[in-house]
């Protein structure tokens, strides 16, 4: 006798929690993501260039960590990843990228646990904006050091290709981050619960 409503013949009686939900704070995954992103950025990305632009994988990594774990974890991750890049790549600075990624992590963390953090569009836009902030910040720093580059060269050869490549390569980073870290949750001292 059919009631007209579909019934499930097999399957669990209660819905399983999503597989992507990380147990605990997921800080181990944050560390693994930061190390993986730095390794890829330093060893692979310099060869994936269009004109003089190189994709920025650190920016989406910091953005997704900040969106899913809050300002404090985002800022510390940005600081650590930036410093690690400056230690392992012959970039000629120390503390500059660390500061820029720290600011990005602290800023993007404000959107944690808000509606935007669960979408894909907002992190993607934030990743490109973060890459833009890093490029402009680095430009200002180089100008302060006395290094120069024609504005047209900077925009056409460096900035636009970097942003385009970052936009192309950000979605996989964001998806991996969401898969590993699960639902957005602010992690800070005095945080209660698992």
């Amino acid at each position, binding site marked *: 006798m059919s009631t007209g409503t579909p019934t499930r013949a097999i399957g669990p009686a209660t819905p399983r929690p999503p597989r992507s939900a990380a147990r605990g704070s997921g800080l181990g995954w944050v560390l693994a993501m930061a190390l993986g992103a730095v*390794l890829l*950025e*330093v*060893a*692979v*990305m*310099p*060869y*994936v*260039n*269009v004109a*003089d*632009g*190189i994709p*920025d994988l650190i920016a989406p990594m910091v953005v997704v960590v900040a969106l899913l774990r809050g*300002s*404090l974890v985002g*800022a*510390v991750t940005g*600081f650590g990843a930036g*410093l690690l*890049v*400056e*230690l*392992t*790549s*012959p*970039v*000629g*600075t*120390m*503390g*500059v990228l*660390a*500061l820029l990624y*720290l600011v990005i992590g*602290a800023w993007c963390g404000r959107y944690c646990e808000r509606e935007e953090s669960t979408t894909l569009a907002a992190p993607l836009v934030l990743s490109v904006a973060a890459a833009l902030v890093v490029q402009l910040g*680095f*430009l200002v720093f*180089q100008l302060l*050091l006395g*290094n*120069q*580059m*024609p504005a047209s*060269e900077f925009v056409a*050869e*460096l900035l636009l290709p970097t942003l385009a490549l970052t936009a192309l390569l950000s979605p996989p980073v964001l998806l991996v981050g969401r898969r590993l870290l699960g639902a957005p949750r602010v992690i*800070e*001292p*005095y*945080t209660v619960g698992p």
Partner: protein
Amino acid sequence: MASSATTGIARRRATLRRVVIAALVIVCLAVFTGYFRESDDGPLHGAQSAAASVVAPVQEVATKAVEPFRDAWGWASGLRDARDRAARLEEEVEALRGLAVDNAVRDQRLAELERLLGVEAMLDAERKLGGYEPVTALVITRSISDWSRSARIAVGSSSGVVRNSPVVAGTGRGAALVGIVTNVSSGASDVAFITDGRTEVGATIPEAGAYPGLLESITPGQLRMTGIPREANVKPNQAVVTGSFSVKGLPSPYPPGIPVGLVTSVGAKEVDVERTVQVTPFVDARTLSYLAVLVPRSREAIARAAG
């Protein structure tokens, strides 16, 4: 009661978060201020060298692991220009065939004149790169920023590399200058390319009268040569080589005669006393996987590197 406790915890959390972030900002400011104020032997540069030594083996493995993907990307991106390059290269081959015959005759005459003048010993030294020993090195990483055109290679002080060792790469025309070693650790070295904004090279154009000039980076991948007087007979396609003279009161760390690039344009206004010479390097160092470091061995070469 519970509400005030929650508010108190929230306030403490916010305060702690701000304190940590502010502390990290101060650390960043302190680090980059210290980094640019200290000498190249300072503790922060030392930490960078130590980190380079530690991660160099990891980077080497990662670089080799992703080499096929890099090659595939390079092949795909190079495909676009392949047809144009083939046509251009065919024209060049025709021109070079004629030059090769001419050069063979000149070589023969030069050998006879050298024997007459007794300068064989000097030229032998030149053939041995004037007291330098070439050490081949794998490029393990490059700068992630175009502001710093540099790379890290997998040889260091344990292979005899010292700061200011010249770095060359093979081209169809022979070895050409790529850059100079700026930082050395035991197992890795940093190379600043000649197209890096911080690098200046004392150079000359033999076909234009061998006037001493200074090469510096202007735009990504291009060099400008200054100090060439108006009367110099500079023309496009003339070769630019390193000079042996001092630059800004400092001795040049480069041995003389290493090819650097070709003159691509020459300009001079009526009021200028110098010519504006644009030079394209023979080698785009960013595309290379291997470089050769010229390790100074002779006393003269070591003194040149020591500055």
